[in-house]
């Protein structure tokens, strides 16, 4: 006996044939839902986001501002370094030696890399004004170096006293030599 199977239920039909297009309804999208943009939409959006380019003057001001920040930066580290130096004491230890070494290294490297550091801020408009910034940068680095020298001096490593040059002082030569008779 062959009997026709019953037609599938509606939900099965719905499942097998999902809606291909978004149903045109007047219902607004739920908040937070963004429909994927169509090409036209995208073109319209890009047309809207074009910003007005800053003028070279504005650019220069901005660059100068940035340059000043770079120049002042070592001075900002100075108090922290000073406290660190003070805390490590004047004894010769591996930590204080490392810290002093960095105190000397950083300003010297900074001075050597001066042009490189300020190259991004170099424009025809700023080059004149940058000299001042560079000098300040060098000065703040010199402050750092000064802190290092103060520390080294406190540690007694600078040859500033007479005892440091004692080895180069010679014993007096005497023009007479006296010996007991029995030594002869």
């Amino acid at each position: 006996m062959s009997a026709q199977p019953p037609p599938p239920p509606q939900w099965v039909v719905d499942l097998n044939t999902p809606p291909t297009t978004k149903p045109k309804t007047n219902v607004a999208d739920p908040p937070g839902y963004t429909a994927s943009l169509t090409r036209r939409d995208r073109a319209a959006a890009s047309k809207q986001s074009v910003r007005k380019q800053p003028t070279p003057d504005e650019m220069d001001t901005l660059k100068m501002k940035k340059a000043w920040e770079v120049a002042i930066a070592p001075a900002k580290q100075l108090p922290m370094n000073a406290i660190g130096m003070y805390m490590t004491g004047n004894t010769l230890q591996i930590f204080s030696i490392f810290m002093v070494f960095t105190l000397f290294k950083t300003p010297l490297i900074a001075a050597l890399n001066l042009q490189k550091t300020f190259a991004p801020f170099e424009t025809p408009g700023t080059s004149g004004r940058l000299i001042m910034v560079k000098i300040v940068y060098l000065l703040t680095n010199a402050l750092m170096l000064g802190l290092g020298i103060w520390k080294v001096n406190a540690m007694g490593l600078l040859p500033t006293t007479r005892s440091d040059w004692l080895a180069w002082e010679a014993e007096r030569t005497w023009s007479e030599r006296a010996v007991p008779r029995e030594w002869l």
Partner: protein
Amino acid sequence: MRVNAALAFAACLAPIAAIFEDDAYHIDFHYALLGYPKPEATFFQKPYAASKASLLYTVSENGTIGAINPKDGALVWRSDQGISGNGHLRAGEDQDTVISAVGNRIAAWSASDGRIVWETSIDGAIAEDLEILEQEDGISNNDAKDAIVLVAHGSSGVKRLDGKTGRVKWTFEDTSGDTPFQVSSSPTTIYYIALHSPLLGGGSKIRVTSLSPITGKKLDSYTLSSEGEVYTKENILFAGANTAAPILAWTDKAYKVLKVNIIGTKGVSSFNTPASESIESIVLHAPRKVNSLPHFLAEYQTATGHSAEVYHVDLKKNAISQAYKLPLLQGKGTFATSTTDANVFFTRITSDEVSVVASVSDGVLGKWAVNGSPSLAGAYPVHGVAEVVVKGNSASAIRSAALFSNGQWALIRNSEIAWNRPEFLSGTVSAVWAQLPEEESLAQQLEEEHHQDVISAYIHRVQRHLRDLEHFPAWLQNLPNRILGSVTDQSGSSTIEEIQHDTFGFHKLVISATERGRLSALDVGSQGKIVWSIDLHQFAPGAVITRPSLKAFRGFVEVKDPGLTSPLFINSTTGSQVSLEHAHNQWLPNLDQETLVTYKLSEGELQGFLGTESTAQAVWTFTPPPGEKIVRYTARPAKDPVASIGKVLGDRRVLYKYLNPNLVLVTAVAEAGRRASVYLVDSASGQLLHTASHYGVDVSRSIPSTFSENWFSYSLTLDSTSKASRGYQLVVSELFESPLPDDRGPLGDSANSSTVLPMGEAAKPHVISQSFQIPEEISHMTVTQTRQGITSRELIVTLPSSNSIVGIPRGVIDPRRPVGRDATAQEQSEGLVKYAPMVLFDPKWHLNHKYEVAGIKDVITSESGLESTSLVFAYGKDIFGTRVAPSFTFDVLGKGFNKVQMLLTVAALFVGVLFVAPLVRRKQINSLWTVPQ
């Protein structure tokens, strides 16, 4: 708990200049010497009746009493009474004491440990002889046996001392004016033997007085006619002690006749001595024990050989007869007597053989060929004692302690030399550090290069290195041994080559001379090994050397002595004589720039002369104030390197040292004010730079002083009559150019200076002194020396009362120690601590640790090859040597360093690298070839 840990840690950090335990007995050595043992006072004796082993007792010629363990030659005990003189030592049978008489002191010592049992002294006389009263009325006394003492040189007589207390039981006074010679005792009588010299000269008669042992009363007296033979005491050979038949033997000057008398009888037996060769000396050997057979042996010494005759005494007939002869042997030898029960044995000791005969017949009981020892090469036995073990008719074992002609006291056990003690080193009066010729020549060559220009110096050096290549194969051959030796810590024997190729410079030769004229070389680096030893008399026949003084030159030493007409020159490495027209003076090289001034003490004042001529007029004289007498002067050592010319203070400023090579410290004492003064004199100009006086000083005690760098120190004994109690002081003074830091004084920075020029007047040093109380008297002081003078110095003092040598660190006696306040942080950083008036000798400072270093006369120091280490050698009665590192051995690996572990670690790392290398390589290649993800 934590506090304790912290304290323990702090204690570890504190600088302690001590001898490390593993260094003791390795870096130092000590010869605990007695001196030459006296033949009649040396014997084997059981320390107490039940003892199984016996000890070897002796009194030496310098009066030291001692006991030696015959097994190994170690000193068991000794006592140096400080009296050198004719010493006597006797021990009764089965007694636990030995009784000694040295000078006027008679003492009984516990035989096993040398503790004093009793002691007594004779007033106004000296003990001439000592005997133990073994038997009284034929009964032997088992309690403490009494001693019979013969006193002479003053009041003469015989005393009997109680063996328990030393109390005098009776005294027999001899007022006849005869010269007391000896006492002897038989079981019933005490015989007092004296020499009766006629007023008109000529020979002496021997007077024998018999005394009652109980009362000391004179029983009888008779005279033996010996005037034909006896002139001095030396002509009497023997006065028998404590035998059943005491004998008295004498001979004539030519040793032709031997006359023997049995004491107590008047008969004299006369024997002709062997006429084969001219006899040079006769020695009689007889047993000492009361119950032994009355036999004795006469030993005849000729120039080339020796022989003996054995005599028997017939007690019933009172007759003496010759029993047998021992044949003449070529070469020197000696005889020793030993007894077992009643049997008497004679031991003949020669340099290559020991043989034993019984006294009853001439059959040889035992004979041993002696294996030679390098220390006894060429020497012959002079006298000895022996112990024999006889089983049946043969001697199964023998040991004999003999003094050899080279001063070695050796024990021959059967045929082995069991030990030898270098007793000839005792009584060293002068010692110097030898300068070896080779090491000096290298210095000379370097000096030569220094003066040449660069190119020729370079060529010279290359040539020298090429010449050195000839040693290369030998060096290469030695290399495995050296590496093995350094790993296993074994130092080989010391030879001259080794001393020359010593890397660390610890092996230095000390040449020492004794008052008997023996010159020896000791290697301080290898436990004081005697490298060579010679008798100086062989180079100067006829001279009598008593006070030799040595001076070291390059490759040789110069020996001067009042008994020598001209100085002797002895090669430092071989001990042979070198002939030199004139010794090259060690001062002369520098004299092209400097004016030489010499000075000497004469007629109570110090006089300076230009040049070396003694005829020149004195350019300056230093005379102490009236009443004061100069006792000594101390100059800065000739070789005194100074590393730094200033002293760096805590605040890094500099106090400049006053460094003047011509400084001399003169010590003078005045009896009247009990005053001791020190004067610091510039010996170039004679200028007085500084003076200090101390009152209430015991001026009879010595005031040792020393000078080093820019500081000097001296030590005083304070008089007990002064207000302060008796005590000892150590004064240290330091000289600076100026009291102000960073100031070089009036001379400023000028590199040249002269104290003779007028500028000198102002340039007096600034002196800082401090005195410290010390617990003991110091008899001698010196300062350590190092190569560059960088290492801090140590003051080495000799303490005679505790027989020790102490090294006081310089920091402890720094005169800049703050007084009355704690040191500031800056002063602490200099190492200064608050002044404390008392300096106690820390046990850790004692260089001699467990050794008892007795009778030290002088201590000499020398640099070693290492900057950290200074060599120390002390001499006198004992010999002691060590090395000190006042600032620790900073330039050499310690003994605790494990070389094997280090080598194993390196090997393990190498193996590890071999394994890991392929892995790493593969990883690196892989990392290059794999595409990054």
